[in-house]
C-alpha cells in the first residue's frame, strides 16, 4: 500500500519528472516519422462498388471542387456547466493531493457528467488511475484528453507527455518514444 505522503509527492512531482524525461535520451533519437494517416480500412467492397457509377476524369478543374472542411478542434465551452465542471476538477485535485484518489475519481466523474468535453477532467482521471496502477484505464482517459485538446498545444503537449509516461511505466518504450516526439513537435506551437 502506498502511503498518502508518497502519493502526494508523486502527484506534485509527476509533471516535473515527465518534463525532465521528455528532454532525456530521446532527444538524440532520429526524428519520429508519423504512421501513415490512412487507417486500415478498405475502400468500398464489391457489393457496394457494383452500384457506384463509373467515374470518369472530369474536364472541369479543381477550381470547381468545393473546399473540404478541415477537422474541427473542440472549442472550450463557456456554459455554466463547464464552470461547475472545472470547479469539480479543482476539488478532485485537492483530494488527489491528500491521497484520497477514489474520492478524486468520484469528483472527476461528476465533472465529466457536467461537461463531456472537459479535457482537464479526463487528464486528471488518467493521473488518478496511473497512481492506482491501472495503466489501461489511464491510457483510455489520457487518449480522450488528447482528442479533446487537439488545437490547444499547451494542454495537448501535457497530455502527450503524460501518455508517454504511462506507456513507459507499462513497458511500451517504443510507443512512448513516438508519443514523446509528438509532444516535442508541439514545442514550437506553445503559447
Amino acid at each position, binding site marked *: 500500500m502506498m502511503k498518502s505522503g508518497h502519493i502526494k509527492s508523486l502527484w506534485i512531482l509527476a509533471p516535473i519528472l515527465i518534463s525532465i524525461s521528455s528532454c532525456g535520451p530521446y532527444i538524440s533519437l532520429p526524428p519520429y516519422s508519423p504512421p501513415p*494517416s490512412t487507417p486500415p*480500412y478498405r475502400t*468500398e467492397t464489391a457489393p457496394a462498388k457494383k*452500384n457506384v457509377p*463509373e467515374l470518369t476524369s472530369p474536364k472541369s478543374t479543381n477550381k*470547381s471542387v468545393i*473546399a473540404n*472542411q478541415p477537422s474541427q478542434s473542440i472549442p472550450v465551452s463557456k*456554459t455554466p456547466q463547464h464552470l461547475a465542471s472545472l470547479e469539480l476538477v479543482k476539488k478532485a485535485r485537492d483530494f488527489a493531493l491528500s491521497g484520497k484518489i477514489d474520492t478524486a475519481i468520484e469528483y472527476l466523474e461528476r465533472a465529466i457528467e457536467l*461537461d463531456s468535453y472537459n479535457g482537464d477532467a479526463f487528464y486528471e482521471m488518467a493521473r488518478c488511475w496511473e497512481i492506482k496502477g491501472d495503466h489501461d484505464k489511464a491510457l483510455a482517459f489520457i487518449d480522450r484528453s488528447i482528442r479533446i485538446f487537439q488545437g490547444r498545444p499547451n494542454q495537448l503537449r501535457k497530455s502527450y507527455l503524460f501518455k508517454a509516461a504511462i506507456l513507459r511505466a507499462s513497458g511500451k518504450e517504443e510507443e512512448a518514444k513516438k508519443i514523446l516526439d509528438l509532444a516535442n513537435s508541439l514545442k514550437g506551437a506553445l503559447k
Partner: protein
Amino acid sequence: MAKKKKIFVKFVLVISLLAVLACFGIYSYFSWKIEQRFSGRLWSIPSYVFSDSLLVFAGQKISIKTLCTMLRNRLYMKVSTEPERPGEFLVEGNKVKVWFRNFDFPGRSISGGKVIFEFSSGILKNLRKDGKNLIYWEMEPIELARYYGKDKESRILISIKKTPKYLKDAVIAIEDRRFYEHKGVDLIGVLRALWVDIKARRIVQGGSTITQQLVKNYFLRPERTIKRKIQEAIIAVILESKYTKDQILEMYLNEIYMGQRGAIAIHGMGEAARYYFGKNVEDLSLAEAALLAGMIKAPNYYNPLLHPKRAKIRRNTVLKAMADMHMISPDELTKASRAPIRVFSGFRPLKRAPYFVDAVFEQLKQLYDPETLEKEGLVVYTTLNPEIEHNAEVSLRTLLQHFEKIKPFLRAKSPKVALQGVIIAVQPKTGAVRALVGGRDYSVSMYNRALFAKRQPGSAIKPFIYYAAIHEGWTPVSWLDDEPIAVTIGKKVWKPKNYDHRFRGRVMLRDALEKSLNVPTVRLAMAIGIDKIISVMKKFGFQSVIKPYPSIALGAFEIRPFELISAYTVFANEGQRTYLLTIKEVYDSKGHLEKQKHMEWQKVITPEEAYLITSLLEGVVKEGTARNLKNLGISFPCAGKTGTTSDYRDSWFVGYTTDMATLVWVGFDNNRSTKLSGASGAMKIWAHFMKSIKPWINPQPFYPPQNIVYKTICKDSGALATDLCPRTRKEAFIKGTEPTHLCPIHSRGNYDEVWTH
C-alpha cells in the same frame, strides 16, 4: 441449649451461603444474558438505498417551483418566516432561502448551512452562502428504499453526543425524572406512582424507570406478570452496574417504539425525527423534542400527523414537566407551548424509483446474504438522479394516457394488460444509470420490462448493421440496391419490404439508414455476412441468443431493453463501451467501504467509426424517420434511431446526446398490436422526457475526431461535388475512404455520359 443455638447458627450460615450463592447465580446468569445480548448487534437495521447527490449550479435553467419540489422531495419544510432550523426553506420573491441540514450517513458527509438561491427569468442566477458566491451546491441524496427483514423495523441510529439536551431532558422529565439518581429501579418512583394510582382508582402512572423500559423492550416478553416484573427489576439493576447512564439513555433513545408507517414500525428518535419532522435529531426544536418525548407513552394515539390536537396537549404536558424540573425557563415554556404543531406531511413512498430499486436489490442479493441486508444497516449509494427519474415516470405515464386517449383501441379492459412502456436513461461517458422505469405502474405490475422483457428491436438494431458495413469499408455515400429480394430460409421464402412498400432502385447508405429502408439493409447484411453481423453484435455486448437468419438485419430477434441501451453507449461514447452502473458504493454501518464502482470503459470500435454512426443517426433526426423531433421541441444536437416491429407490436426510440443516452419502448405484454410506429409512439415519449430533463443535461455538438474528413459530395452521384451539382451535402468520411473523383454526372463536358447512366 448451646447445641440448639449452634444448629441455628449453622442453619443461618447455610441459608446465607445459599442466598449468596443464589444471588451470585442470578447475577451471573443475567450478566451472561446481558453480555450475550449486547455483544452482538444491538438492533436489526435495514439496508438503506440512496440516490446520487445532486449538483445545482449558477446559470442552471431551473425555476423556483422546481427547486421547491427538489427540496420537498428531500423532506424540507416550507416556512413563512426566516428559516430558524436546518430542514426549512422560505420563498421570498425571486429568492429561496434554504437552511440545509448536514447529511451524515456512513460513507458520505455533506455539510449543510444557509444558502440563498436567486432566480431571474427561469434561471438560477446566483447561489450564496455566508455572503460568498458559490459555483455549485451539492444537495443531499434522497433515500429511495430500505431493505427490511421480517420484523420490518425502521431505525436511524443516533449518538447521545449529538442528541440535543432538550430531547434528553424532555424524555427524562416525562418518563423517569429521577433517572440520574436511581440504580435501575426507583422505589420512590414506584411508591409515588402507586399513590397516584390509588388516588385515581386506576393505573395512571407506571413506576418503570427508563432502564426498566429498555429491559422490557429488549429482553422480556410484553406480559404483565409478577415474575416478569421481578426479572425486569433484577436485569435493570445489573444493567446499571455494567453501563453508564448515558449509554443506557442512548440505547433507550434508539430502541423506543415511535409509531407506524404502514407495515413498518418506527423505532428510535433518529427515525422519528426524520419521519415526523423531516429533520436530523440534532436539528429538533424544543417543541418538537417535547412532542417526540410525549409520544413515547402511546405513539399511535399521540401521532401528530393523525391527531395534532392530542399531540399538542401531550407536548405541553411534557414542556410543563420540564419547566417544573427547571430544565427550561418560563419564557421557553411559554414560547414552545404556543408553537403550532408543524409536521412533515409531504408524499413519502416506502420505495421511490421502484423498478430501479428492485434492480439494485437484485444486485445486492448477489453480493450479500439476506440476513446481512436485513439487519446490518448497509448503506448503498446509487447512480439514480431522482429528478430525472421522476420526469421519466411522468413522461411515460402522461404520454401512454395520451395515446390511449387519441387511439381508443389502445385502452385495455384491465390495468394488468394495459399498454406498457420502458424508459432507461444513462450517462454514456460514466455509465451511470440516471433513470430506469420498467413499467407504467409499479403498483399494478412489478415486472421490470427494462431488465427482463425480451422484445424484438426492429429497426432500432440497424445502426449495428451499418457499423459492420462501415467497418468493412462501406462509406455513407456507398450505393445500396433497393430492389425486390427473395431469401430462401429452409422451405420458406422471405421477401422483405420497405415500410412504404416502394423500391427505389438504389440508395446511398446514409439515406437507407436515415429512412430506415429494410430492403437495402437486408442486402447490406447479406453482403457483409450474417455470421459477421452476429459477431459484431456480440462485440457490442448483446447477450441474448441471436440465430443466424438474414432477418436479424431488421431486428427480428429478441433482446432486452437494457442490452440495447448498453450497446448504444458505444456510439455515444466515441467507441468505448461504458459499463452501466446502478450501485456506486456500499458502506457498512460503521462507514467502512465495502464495495465501490468507478466508470469503466472497454474499447469496442474506433472513435472514427463511432463518429460516422453518430453522424448517420444525427441524419435520422434531421432528415429521416425521426425528423419530427424538431416539431416536438427538440432543438439540441442529438442522434437516434426509431424502431417498429411487425404489426406494430413494439415501438422503440433510442436517442442520445453527448451526455445522455435514453431508450424508450412501448408495447403490450401480450404482444398485441399498438398501431404505433417508433416515431409516433416511443419517440414522442423520448422528446417529452428529454425536454423535461433539460436542466440536468448539457447537450453539446458531436465533434469529429482527428481522422474524420468532411467532403462536399453530390447527392446524385455520391462523388465529390462540382459547382454544377444542384444537390450537394457535406459528408463525413474516415480519412482514406473519402471519394477522390469529381461528380461524373454534373461535370462540364460530361453531360452526354450523364444520360447514358
